């Protein structure tokens, strides 16, 4: 087995801490509210918990999608080694977000979840985004990457759809102020446009070589 360079170990450790910080901070606040009835999470803590978890899932998903463009822009191939981790953290926040909705929000009405998924477009797309991330998380291990071969990359293209659905989920739930979801939509659009441009727009010497082969 190859030894991971110390630099990467340090960087990964830092990234773990950064990615877990929002969860730890929220966890601490939830604990404080449960114990002392403090107002740190506002008048409606359940809504605040759901919103914040969802926001971090979306942010980490965007960060995951930013790795490839960043790598291509900077030429630092090493960046790709952090992609899986970011993707898994996005999935982690999405899972906790979904659980909070079920356990803290719907509570006794949890059987309503099926109806909500079927009837409420913003929940339909949110659930679909989570569902798309599920096989990606499962097949993120080295073993699965090897087993799936070329199909692994194909399967993991689903992350683009998950990104679009996640942004839609946010967009459709706001009442009239679309500024925040619009910001994420713009970021996502740039990340996806970069890929389209790289693939079809840019004339690269590499593609010419590939064609002459």
């Amino acid at each position, binding site marked *: 087995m190859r030894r991971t360079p110390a630099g990467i170990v340090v960087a990964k450790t830092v990234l773990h801490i950064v990615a877990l910080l929002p969860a730890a901070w929220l966890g601490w606040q*939830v604990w404080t*509210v*449960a114990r002392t*009835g403090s*107002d740190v999470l*506002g*008048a*409606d*803590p*359940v*809504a605040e918990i759901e919103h914040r978890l969802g926001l971090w899932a979306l942010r980490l998903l965007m960060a995951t999608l930013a790795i490839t463009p960043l790598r291509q822009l900077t030429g630092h191939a090493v960046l790709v080694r952090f992609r899986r981790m970011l993707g898994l953290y996005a999935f982690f926040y999405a899972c906790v977000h979904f659980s909070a909705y079920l356990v*803290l*929000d*719907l*509570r*006794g*009405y949890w059987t*309503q979840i099926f*109806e*909500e998924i079927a*009837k*409420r*477009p*913003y929940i339909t797309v949110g659930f679909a985004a989570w569902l798309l991330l599920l096989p990606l998380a499962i097949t993120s291990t080295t073993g699965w990457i090897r087993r799936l071969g070329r199909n692994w990359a194909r399967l993991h293209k689903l992350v683009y759809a998950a990104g679009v659905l996640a942004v839609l989920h946010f967009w*459709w*739930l706001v*009442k*009239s*102020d679309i*500024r925040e979801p619009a910001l994420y939509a713009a970021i996502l659009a740039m990340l996806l446009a970069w890929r389209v441009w790289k693939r079809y727009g840019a004339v690269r010497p590499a593609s010419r070589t590939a064609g002459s082969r």
Partner: protein
Amino acid sequence: MNLLESLRIPAREITDEAVYRDRRRLLAAFAASPALALSGCSDASPPPPPSKVSITPEQARSGFRTNEELTRYEDVTSYNNFYEFGTGKADPSHAPKTLRTKPWQVAVGGECAKPGVVSLETLLKGFTPEERIYRLRCVEGWSMVIPWLGVPLASVLKRFEPTSKAKYVAFVTLGDPAQMPGIRYRALDWPYREGLRIDEAMHPLAFLATGLYGKPLPQQNGAPLRLLVPWKYGFKGIKSIVRIEFVEKMPETAWHAAQPDEYGFFSNVNPNVDHPRWSQRSERRIAGSASKLFAERIPTRMFNGYAEQVASLYSGMDLRKWF
């Protein structure tokens, strides 16, 4: 007529504009979800209010004060939808206190015998403030129980002697960007507008609040004068009122103008009619000091629990159509 001339005929002479508009409306209704299709109805005029509504004073009084657990003052004053001060729930309470509530004038006009621009003091002169403890159900699915201070809307309106042409009452919020920083962003078509049918406005539960918890209304709660219609969704309770007008036709309202398929004129609390995007069957009650983290949702009641007092206003009306 040659071809060139026929081209000069304006399109409106070929297709009548009314027909054209109707076609667009129909197309929109068909293209969208079933909920959207309902909105096509909002162009028609609603059925007239029942000619005779009888509410005994006892019936009315039983709705004045609920004995449910109150929402804490801190929560009432820190969790607000008042987009003129920002669209986040905490924005209005964090906003600088830029609203000048003294002096405050209210212009009352339209179909009435005694229109006029009056100061808030004149408007309320001679009334003893009453306390009402009302449930407030937000269209977003949360609710509060708040002790308000104020006067019945009917007593104030009667001073201006509305005529028989006054079928509706329209309300307008201040729309001054210098005093309301949130107006810079066009979240809604400012100024905020609301309206009631005249019989709703004259109902003993309709209330004009000037305070809460025995204190003057804070800026974020709609100082210095706001409306409360406890059987309707919270956004009907227009804040910082500067104009009241008696009108003959159903007035346009801010949220209806923004999303006609989602927010109707009546907006009565109704657990059986969902908001197109979310269920209205239950609500999260923000009340008391016990941990809200593990509080069970409560079922939403017809007319927010005020059916005994107000259901007769809508007898014979299709509440699914006139949501």
